[in-house]
C-alpha cells in the first residue's frame, strides 16, 4: 500500500460535465494543461500547482 502514500486519492472535481457534448478522443500521453480549480477543500493545497511531483487521481462526479 506504500504507493498510495504518493497518490492523492480522489481529487474530486465538480462541474462542467455536459453529458451530450462532443469531446476530444482521449488525453492519455498528454501533458496536463494549466489547471485552475476553485474552492479546493479537504487538502492543504491552495492551488493545483501544489500537487507538483505527486501522482494525482482526478475523479469527475456530481452529487446527484
Amino acid at each position, binding site marked *: 500500500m506504500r*504507493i*498510495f*502514500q*504518493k*497518490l*492523492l*486519492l*480522489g*481529487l*474530486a*472535481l*465538480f*462541474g*462542467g*460535465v*455536459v*453529458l*451530450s*457534448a*462532443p*469531446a*476530444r*478522443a*482521449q*488525453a*492519455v*500521453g*498528454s*501533458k*496536463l*494543461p494549466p*489547471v*485552475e*480549480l*476553485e*474552492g*479546493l*477543500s*479537504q*487538502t*492543504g*493545497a*491552495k492551488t*493545483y*500547482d*501544489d*500537487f*507538483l*511531483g*505527486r*501522482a*494525482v*487521481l*482526478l*475523479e*469527475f*462526479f*456530481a*452529487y*446527484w
Partner: protein
Amino acid sequence: MTSEGEGETVKWVQSKGAKYAYGYDKGGKLSSFFGISGIPAAVLIDAKGVVVWQGHPGSLPETAIAKACEGALPKPLWEWSPATKAVKAALLKRQYKVALDEATKLAEADGGPQILAAIQQVIGGRVTGLEDAYSKGDYLGAETAGAALVKELAGLPEKEKVDAVLAKLEANKEAGPILKAQKQVAKLRAAELSKRKEREAAVEDLLKIEKQFPGTYVASEAAELAKVIKARK
C-alpha cells in the same frame, strides 16, 4: 454538477463522509480537455504531470497507480516546513538547480536530506522518462520533454544526458517522418471531431499512419486512437 451550487455539494460530501480533496472545475475547462462525456470518470496523472490513464474509476488498474507514483515526491509540498519556502518556489518554477542549492541549505529538522533526495529522485525520474520515451520510439514525447528539460536542468550534470538524447533524435533519420506522424496523431487526439464524417476521416488517417509505420510507437498510438474514435457514437 455545480449548477446545483456549492452548498449542495458540500452537504453531499459531508453526508457521505468523503475525506478526499475536492474542487470545482468552473466552466468545465478540465472536463472539456479530457472529453468527459459521462460520470463517474477518472484520470490518472503521473508524478511528471503526464496523463497516463483515463476511464471509469472502477476499472483503474493498480499497476497504473504504481507506475504513476514512480519518482513522486514522498510528501506533498504543503506538508513541507516553512523553512523550505525557497525550495518550493524554485520547484514550482521548475528551476531544479536552484531547488537543489536551496535544499542543501536546509537543516535536518526541516527535512533537508529527504527533500534533497526527493528532488534528485524527481530529476532522475524525468531524465529516465525522456530516455525511455526515445528508446520506445516516442520521438514526440522525447522532443517535448527534452525541450523542457534543457531549460529546467540548466547548470546540472543531468542536462548532458538530455542533450545526448536530443542529439540522437536530431541524427536519427527515421525519426523525422515518425515525429511528423506523431504530431498528426496528437492533433487528431486534441480535435473535437463532433461530426461523424470528421471521425471517419480521422480514423482513415490514423489507419494510414498505422500501415505506413508498422511496428513503431506511432503505429500503436494511431491504432489505439482509431479504436477510441470508432467507439464514439
